[in-house]
């Protein structure tokens, strides 16, 4: 067995996991405020191409990352306005955002087709640590954004469960009427976290573009990672720490078919393995879209429900 292939696979799996952590954390913050944003895939694509164009024009990947995050927040603000201000059906609004985001990204991406970016985000070097066999390249061979993703998940968990704004965020997703009665603005909180969520998704999309694919391949750039991120939030029970493990698991599952093909292991058809993450995602999304099953999964009680103050 070729050890290098497996190391490469692990590194790739963690790379996918990084995008997934950002996207899933973004979805988690959005959903914890009670807004269901199914448009993650659309946001990922738009911010990916925006970051590519920005990095290409400025020559700075960091500028690209910032532009990608901002575009993510702007895209999410469309969903926030539709679902919070106009109280639209959030499932419909989210799906519309996917279609809009995909179309916009393809349009913006026309000039980028076939181009590659010269400056990409480089892995950090931990000196001798990176040279440890097997573990070195996997644990110490990542770039700073990957470490940032893991740190962010930890911070998110502390924020959610041990701070005052975190308490208010969770309350807004569970019982907005109570938050409203305390004189806090449900709309403001929901719009804020939908946009923060969008920025995180945007960061994930930009990083995927600038550190990983390094070229625009239309919808294949993200390859459904936005949908998987949504499913990941469900499987993680809306808890940030579990997202790290879930993201790594999904990362490996997505990489496994290629590795098995390379190793010529054929007792399981690779098409079947490729299908698995998407099958899991499909099931999770169906569950997420039904109010009944949503509750039994431990979703925020008011997820997907527009808040209307009951007038007496």
């Amino acid at each position: 067995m070729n050890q290098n292939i497996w190391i490469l696979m692990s590194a790739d799996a963690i790379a996918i996991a990084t995008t997934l952590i950002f996207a899933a954390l973004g979805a988690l913050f959005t959903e914890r405020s009670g807004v269901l944003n199914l448009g993650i895939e659309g946001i990922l694509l738009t911010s990916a191409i925006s970051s590519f164009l920005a990095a290409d024009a400025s020559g700075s990947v960091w500028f690209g990352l910032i532009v990608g995050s901002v575009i993510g927040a702007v895209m999410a603000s469309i969903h926030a306005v539709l679902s919070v201000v106009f109280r639209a059906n959030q499932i419909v609004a989210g799906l519309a955002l996917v279609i809009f985001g995909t179309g916009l990204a393809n349009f913006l991406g026309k000039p980028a087709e076939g181009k590659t970016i010269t400056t990409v985000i480089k892995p950090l070097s931990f000196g001798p640590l990176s040279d440890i066999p097997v573990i070195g390249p996997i644990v110490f061979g990542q770039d700073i954004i990957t470490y940032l993703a893991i740190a962010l998940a930890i911070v998110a968990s502390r924020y959610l469960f041990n701070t005052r704004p975190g308490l208010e965020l969770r309350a807004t997703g569970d019982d907005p009427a109570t938050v409203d009665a305390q004189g806090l603005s449900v709309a403001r909180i929901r719009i804020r976290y939908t946009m923060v969520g969008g920025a995180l998704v945007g960061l994930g999309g930009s990083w995927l573009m600038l550190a990983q694919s390094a070229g625009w391949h239309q919808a294949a750039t993200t390859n459904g990672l936005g949908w998987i991120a949504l499913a990941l939030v469900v499987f993680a029970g809306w808890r940030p720490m579990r997202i790290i493990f879930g993201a790594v698991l999904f990362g490996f599952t997505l990489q496994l078919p290629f590795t098995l093909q390379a190793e010529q292991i054929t007792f399981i058809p690779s098409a079947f393995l490729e299908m698995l993450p998407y099958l899991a995602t499909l099931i999770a999304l169906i569950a997420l879209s039904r109010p009944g099953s949503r509750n039994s999964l431990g979703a925020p009680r008011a997820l997907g429900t527009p808040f209307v103050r009951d007038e007496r």
Partner: protein
Amino acid sequence: MSSTSHEVARGPHHNSGAASTALSAHSIDKKFPGVLANDSVDFDVRAGEVHTLLGENGAGKSTLAAVLCGLYQPDAGYLMRNGKRINLSSPRAGLQHGIAMVHQHFRLVERFSVSENVILGSRDLPFKLNRRDINEKVASVAESYGLPIDPNATVGDLSVGQRQRVEIVKALYQGAEILLLDEPTAVLVPSEVEKLFENVHAMTAAGKSIVFISHKLGEVVEISDRVTVLRNGRVTGHVSGRGTTDTKELARLMVGRDIELNAQRATHATGHEILQIRNLSLSVENVAVLSDISFNVHAGEMVGIAGVAGNGQRELADTIAGLISPTSGSVSISGAMTTDCGPIQAREVGLAYVPEDRLGMGLVPSMTILDNLLLTRDRKVVVDRVSVRPEATRLIEQFEIKANGPDHLARKLSGGNAQKVLLARELSGGRSATKLLVVCSPTRGLDVGAIETVRRLLNDARRAGQAILLISEDLDEVLSLSDRVFVLYRGAVVLETPGESAQLSQVGAAMAGLANEGRS
């Protein structure tokens, strides 16, 4: 009439000397489209007293309370706090002046712990929360007013009475000096009401002011130092002095005419068995919801089911109505077995059902009164509105429904009128004459006038020989109307007693689950 002109010699019971006015409202006007909810209302509450706002639903007491706590801004008039004029732009501003409202519908996050709920919304909290400090602080606030509560308990696991305590602790934690309690006893069992009143005394003893909002005369007389009665948005009277108040006089001030306070039992020789329930059991997801229930209801008899909400009442009603199939046991209505037959079969043999959820299960809110009446009439393919219209008009008159006619939308009816439409439909018979009427919480949320009408209609139906099963959380209602009373606790009948000679304490204990276990 200004409330200050009506000074009483006797001060609040525990407080010697002149208590200062903590909060006062002067000539408050509040308009809503089409209604003047508050018309030049004066009100004041002193430190350390309980001042009750008494009135029917729609009398304007909730509006006044909303103005007092900053939820609504008055169109005219002003508020004074400790002698200074204040302007409350929001409930938060009210809180800053030490005024807090405990809503009838609790504002609590069920998944949060008690202390998380208590601190939610407090602005002076640090960014980072230290759970132990917060728990200690919440517990100490709770204990100092005799409101023991576990700060770590999840609110979703608490009883209604405990949740109310959490709400009160929350208000106190936020520094409330004046607490507005909006119909606080509406959701409590008798023993919890007693506990609440103890807490109220502990709070007034500590110098807090309580504005108590209610339409239940008995408890108002018991708890209040002073009473202000509202009707149609105006103050119709002030009464002072605990225990010295005449309930009849209060009722007259409230309704504007003499009313019969205690619904009279329509004594009637009972006929043959209409409803027979045999060993009825129901399990939902392996949890026993109903266990081994057997009883009969005779023609011309009213049988009451008492119990705290969630002890199987709704499931019992739905099972009789054919909406749920029992796990075992049988239901028969006037001799016909209706177990597992579905609601249409049950209605065919004479069932009428008034569910608890009027606008959800009972009526279709977006349809007219006429169409709602049609729902239980014929089941032809083409709807025949023309022939039912005269009957609808007649029913609206007969049941004193305040509506513009048969084409009035159900959702635009007040609670009392919606209930009357529902009763009109169920009592007037559908495809077959009504023999058995199952009614759930028929007067919940209705004002005194409507309650009187609904109870009279039920008594009329009984006199007409219908068998009635009355399921209600209003213990007074069950005891005063029913010939026989069953108490449900955790899905089982734990007490059977004649309605007439029932003892409140015995029924209350059974409702709290103390019937079988004895006193320990």
